């Protein structure tokens, strides 16, 4: 099991507390200072500082050559990121909402993700693709999706999903330094943008100096003995809140933040379930054919005998995301649903 744990749960007096948005921008800026090959491009990432604040301050420091607003031409600029990366640059490129992937997915999954393989490793593709995920604020079915499973399913891309600012910074540094494409998925409601109704626990102490967090190391963000709750991004916060509720019922839940989906830290999940015997996967992405199934299968195929009860999932139902608040909130995972899932588990 990984010994890394999130600092999310330990606020201290007078410490510097930073939003994910700022942690991302800080990581990018620090890398841009030491590496002239790093540059940023995307829609409204210049003067506007990114719709979600994650490029704020960059154009002021680095100018419009290295912080490039693009036309609304995702196929062209995703393809351009691939070409620039193969030519020695290290683009950090933004897809404003992950929901827009469909207009440019060929450039992402047929070029960005495969050119290393197609070149037998002779060509490197150090692209970081930042993209916003998540709903909960009534933005409708084309602006609220997570699509974790969609990206994690297709080989050739590393997939990062931070749940807090500390991880956001360290994972961004690792992403920029990686010679392979990294899809960096940040959840809008964790960004620390008040106008999106942010989850406060995502804003945590973040060291000013540069540091990196390795990919493929899940964090056990809360230890427990009776059930393992696995998630990413908002799912981690839902898991932690559910763990509080379960604790009030005398049930001790362990909460795992996968942090990266590719590579996936299957060992940490398996070892935790081996200890607790029970598994709940929380996923804000669509339920079927995605993350939740994969995590359950990961445990079941390795050794079914570690499971003391039927594993459960609390995921987004297989429906487009509705606009109206009551319908959207009904469909989203939440702590109560996790608690219910625990009690609904069929014991073997």
């Amino acid at each position, binding site marked *: 099991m990984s010994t890394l744990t999130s600092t999310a749960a330990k606020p201290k007096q007078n410490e510097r507390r930073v939003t994910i948005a700022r942690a991302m921008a800080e990581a990018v800026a620090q890398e841009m200072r030491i590496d002239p090959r790093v540059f940023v491009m995307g*829609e409204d990432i210049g003067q*506007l500082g990114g719709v979600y604040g994650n490029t704020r301050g960059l154009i002021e420091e680095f100018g419009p050559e290295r912080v490039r607003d693009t036309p609304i031409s995702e196929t062209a600029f995703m393809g351009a990121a691939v070409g620039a990366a193969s030519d020695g640059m290290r683009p950090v490129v933004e897809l404003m909402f992950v929901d827009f992937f469909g207009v440019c997915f060929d450039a992402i999954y047929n070029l960005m993700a495969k050119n290393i393989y197609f070149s037998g490793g002779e060509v490197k593709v150090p692209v970081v693709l930042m993209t916003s995920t998540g709903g909960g604020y*009534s*933005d409708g*079915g084309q602006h609220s999706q997570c699509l974790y499973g969609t990206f994690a399913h297709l080989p050739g891309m590393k997939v990062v999903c931070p749940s807090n600012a500390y991880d956001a910074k360290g994972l961004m540094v690792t992403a920029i330094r990686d010679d392979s494409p990294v899809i960096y998925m940040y959840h809008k409601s964790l960004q620390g943008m008040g106008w999106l109704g942010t989850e406060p626990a995502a804003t945590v102490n973040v060291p000013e100096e540069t540091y990196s967090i390795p990919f493929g190391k899940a964090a056990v963000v809360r230890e427990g003995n009776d059930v393992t709750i696995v998630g990413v991004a908002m799912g981690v916060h839902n898991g932690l809140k559910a763990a509080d509720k379960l604790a009030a019922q005398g049930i001790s839940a362990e909460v795992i933040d996968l942090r990266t989906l590719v590579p996936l830290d299957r060992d940490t999940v398996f070892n935790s379930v081996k200890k607790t015997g029970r598994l709940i996967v929380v996923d804000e992405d669509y339920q079927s054919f995605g993350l939740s199934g994969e995590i359950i299968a990961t445990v079941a195929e390795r050794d079914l005998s570690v499971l003391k009860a039927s594993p459960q999932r609390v995921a987004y139902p297989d429906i487009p995301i509705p606009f109206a608040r009551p319908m959207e909130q009904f469909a989203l995972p939440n702590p109560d649903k996790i608690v219910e899932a625990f009690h609904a588990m069929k014991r073997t």
Partner: protein
Amino acid sequence: MQPTRDQKVWMYENMLVSRFLEETIEQIYLEGKKPVFNMANGPIPGEMHLSNGQEPCAVGVCAHLKPEDVVTGTHRPHHIAVAKGVNLRKMVAEIFGKKTGLSGGRGGHMHLFDANVNFACSGIIGQGMGPAVGAALSRKMQKKPGVAVAYIGEGAVNQGAFHEAMNLAAVWKLPFICVIEDNQWGISVAKSASTAVKDNSIRAQAYGVPGYLVKGNDPCEIFRVAGECIERARRGEGPSLIEIETSRLAGHFMGDAEGYRPKGELDALRARDPIPAMKARLMAEDGMKQEENDAIVARARAKVDDAIQFGRESPYAQPEEALEKVFA
């Protein structure tokens, strides 16, 4: 082709309906969002793209259209929906997310569908193009009357969908018109920073179809040009393209601080607000008196008030209705 007096009045009234609607939505949108602006709160949550200033694009084109004609709007669809005759009560109820809304609250303001008047839209830039071309194809194949109009922003013209759909419509000679609302901005990015040509009308040449540039944000001039294009399409002579220079009098969406706008731009645009201009014109050219104006304004206001009241007072769908209507 010049609009008749009736058509001018129709355009004026629909511009007013659209503007009153936006102004009312603006107020209601801010309910529950003060002192802290949080998009998730209030009676109308989520993103809100207002169309203030762009009304001429909607009325100048739609004045020529019948319910059977097809229109696809953009992420900024209210003015177009109004001009196309979308059921206003249901539309407002949809914007509130209510059960009585066009989709029962599943869609929201970027997803307004009214099959009775053949209106649809999408929140994805440029993606109204293909469906409009497909509707035009359907009419041609079925030998049914009707043209299809796709609205698109000047920023969206740089999206591949524009190119593919224009070419397809031209190759198949479909009754299709692409209307570009050039408000000079794609969120915070100026047209000059995103578009390699000054006028998108020149891009019509890439498809061998007529291309027009309409300046002045003038409903009558838009009417004239759109009339030609639509007649052409109805005659079976194929697609055309119109770029309209218009103005975005609001932020990209509500909450946009617009720090990227050059100082003075907004004031200058407001000074050229097309609605007072249209009023002045009707008075100057068409003998509209203040009383007639007041009556038009009152009618427009009443329509909006009625729709708003309907939307506000309608109930939400049951939460679990979210699970319905995924498939037909």
